[in-house]
């Protein structure tokens, strides 16, 4: 059982958390400007990395806060926990973030062009 450190409540068993999948999928600011294919990148395509992976969790049985985690999906080792709206600081995290195809995707460019969340 994973031991995940909630930034607020501290380390807890994984079944206290709700999994949010890949992190840093920015919601396009002007979806109407995207082709169906580009919209599908945002909506469906995954990075699904084997190795360091940036993902979102929410402490659903605790403080209900969302946060980001860098976890090695090959070993389940947790490398870093960091708040929503921020970027990873660990070398593995930074590499995973920059290496993600999404950084070049039209959907992300669209999101960054307008107001964006995280």
């Amino acid at each position, binding site marked *: *059982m*994973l*031991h995940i450190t909630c930034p607020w409540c501290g380390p807890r068993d994984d079944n206290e958390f709700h999994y949010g999948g890949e992190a840093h999928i920015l919601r396009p600011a002007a979806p109407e400007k995207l082709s169906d294919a580009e919209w599908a990148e945002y909506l469906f395509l995954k990075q699904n990395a084997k190795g360091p992976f940036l993902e979102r969790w929410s402490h659903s049985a605790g403080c209900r*806060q*969302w946060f980001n985690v860098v976890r090695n999906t090959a070993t389940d080792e947790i490398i870093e926990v960091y708040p*929503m709206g921020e970027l990873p600081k660990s070398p593995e995290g930074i590499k995973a973030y920059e290496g993600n195809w999404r950084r070049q995707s039209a959907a992300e460019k669209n999101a960054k062009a307008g107001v964006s969340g*995280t």
Partner: protein
Amino acid sequence: MSGQSFRIRDKGRIDRSKPVRFTFDGKSYEGFEGDTLASALIANGVHLIGRSFKYHRPRGILAAGSEEPNALIQLGGGNKSEPNLRATQIEIFDGLEAASQNRWPNLKFDVGAINSVFHRLFPAGFYYKTFMWPASLWLKYEHVIRHAAGLGKAPPDRDPDRYEKVHAHADVLIVGGGPAGLAAALAAGKTGARVILADETADWGGSLLSESDCEIDGKEPARWVEETVAELEAMPEVTLVKRCTITGYYDHNYLTGLERVSDHLGAAPEHTPRQRLWKIRAKRVVLATGALERPLVFTDNDRPGVMLSSAVRTYVNRYGVLPGRKAVIFTNNDDAYRTALALEEAHGRVAAIVDVRASVTGPLADAVRAKGITVYENHGIVSVQGTQKVTGIEVMQLDADGTGVTGTAKSLNCDLIAMSGGWNPTVHLFSQSKGKLTWDPEMAAFIPGTASQALASAGACNGTMGLADGLKEGVKLGAEAAREAGHKGRAPAAPKATEPAQGSLRPLWITPGKARLGRKGKHFVDFQNDVTAADVQLAAREGYRSVEHLKRYTTTGMGTDQGKTSNVNALAILSDVLAAEIPSVGTTTFRPPYTPATIGAYAGRNVGKLFEPIRKTRIDEWARANGAKFEHVGQWMRAWYFPKNGETFRQAIDREVKAVRDSVGILDASTLGKIDIQGPDAAEFLNRIYTNAWLKLGVGRCRYGLMLKEDGMVMDDGVTTCIGESHYHMTTTTGGAANVLSWLEEWHQTEWPDLKVFFSSVTEQWSVVAINGPKSRAVMQKLCNDVDFSADAFPFMAMKEGTVAGIPARLYRISFTGELSFEINVPARYGLALWEALMEAGKEFDITPYGTETMHVLRAEKGFIIVGQETDGTVNPLDLGMDWIVSKKKPDFVGKRSLERESMASPERKQLVGLLTEDPQTVLPEGGHVVEKLKPQPPMVMLGHVTSSYYSPNCGRSIAMALIKGGHARHGQTLHVPLEDKVVKVTVTEPRFFDLEGERIDG
């Protein structure tokens, strides 16, 4: 009578003052407290314990611990019966009933043994090669195979015992209470760290309890154990758990253990659990799990009376029983010589030591020779006499490379063969923790390599075989672990230990027989699954070259012992055939649990009434008292309908449905999800989440909203009310409540953190009673005099606060029936009071309580959808004909862009329509499918399915809704619903059937 003729007078840790009576296969025996079933049977000279899985060969006791592959027992009877227990682990108690397994009619004469006559037809994997023709017969073949297999029997019915679970946290968890584990616990405990020490047996000390030839700090090992345990027990932060097998090593130092709390007592005292599942999160783990001795693979090495050498020593020294009167030791290492000496010391006789090593020297060999025991160097056992018990052997000299034998065979009489093929460190947990194993050529075994979690291995499980070194390692690693867990303190000095020195071993994986392998007699590798060396070689020859293929093809290591005694032997024999180094062939992965763990313990108390919470409203007790029938809706229990005496389902529903439209009905709507939403940006937030416009909703006004997933599919719906300045009360579907709240939180926290808004669930803060029907206003007026109920003063989709039956209430004029209707929200504690007051006030109008079924019929008459019934995650608002609620003006909302994909508006999509059956009395089954072109029989092309279908007493006919391809363009068409027994003709209509002009809403 004490039939314990194999009991040794002056040895063992059993309590001779406490005789214990038990039965085996119906025959009564006596043992002593402290005996295992195995030791007690040996004391009584019983060696035939079971039959093997495939050939039904007679089998005895091989080991003294949890690695035992042969002596499997069905324990007890009735609902407390338990199959496949190891005789070597069962502590005996008065009245214990044990029975052998997998034999018929009895153990001594077993019909299944016929298999061993035809054994040559059953090589490894034979079943893959036959039983193929005719295909139809496989089920018959299979029936026979299944009944031949399967070992013991499940109990007939429910388990009467209790099981507990406990969550534990430790600075240091130490697994194994042998010398290394005790030393580690002492060192860690002294630092004040929180220590848990667990051992799978009933006694502390592990291997020390089996030895009579070593000393620790000048004391007998047993003394040292007692003193150490006493010291540990005095430490408040040290928890000692006996009879607790650590079964699994999971992520992030999370381990599970199964404690047998009261099994050894026969029956658990009232309220005491039978077993307890430990779930332990440890900062550091020290594994001190010891090592398991390897059998030697020689001709007919499975006969009762062939035992592991260390097990023989355990029976002699720990249990005070003699496994045989005349023994032959067969070994490839020095350790077995200690067994010879132990037997001699216990007045047993040792006929000879057969050693595969070319020349044997050293203190142990000298001691043995001094006792006049012949040592046959460079020899092997080539045959074993006796089938149900060993009666003798033949030995021959090994040839140069040990693959054959030379010279002539010498016969020896004996009734016990103590064999030792060396040791395998117990690396199971280390491997489960995802640590990497490495091959140690010195001891010819796998030992822990790089760890991948916060753990260390001490003693024999780390390949540290000597007692002194094991103790030293334990002390060192115990102190280290405590320090790493944040507890300072120097490691105490390691105790001094003395024991006979040992030389090296000779790995000889197969002892050659007189004939070529597989031609005469059997060299067993996996005893329980009857896998022989010849089977392993056959598999390799047939191309099953990976260890996993070997395991799966031959089933070696797949038995209830999970190959504890067989895996490395099998692996070594395989690598021989492949002419590859053992490490390059690899090892198999060890999977939890270490030893089989009771299913009931995993279930714990989450069974029966505690299996899952059942949620009830505060009006539930009234419904129960008044004969309601209930249905599960998610976790909720909801009143389904209220039959009056003798009414059928249909009669009750018809009555309830009519009553609402004719007079007034009352419904408990408390289960609807409710969310309190506050903040200056609340309206903006709703505007992004819902498909329609929310920026201009006035205080005291309600609006229906539809939520989509980002993929454009309908997710949930409900009415949300503006109850104050930037303060909203949202309602959701009963099943959707939790999801919707997390949905709102997720969008707020992860996408729009800049919006100033807060959400809180208030679902159970309010009891909600809906009264519907033309008379509902009259009923309200009787109970509430501080609200003007006139249609103008209190219009549809408005909310007012007032006092109903003296209870402060929020009144919502919303309607799920199309009738004049009020939803009354009161603080939950008054829910029942409100309901009873309304029933009383409604008497004169014959107010009718109704449940979910009538609610469904009424809303269907009006064509209102139910999320989860008209929708299933694949339906968008356009499909439902709800374009009216999808804003064209808003730049964006969740799901908008997906809706704009060409496919979402495709006329080919399944769209919501009404269906009218040709015969108005025929009610379609929900789930029935609609077809255009009827065929005499399937397959036929389906257009879609009936989502809702009822008889509507108000329409005087059946009504139905359906999702069908291109439905919106099919109004007026005649289609068919082919059912198993008949075909129903239907006409497509609007999905609305009653009060089409909406004239009833004001009563």
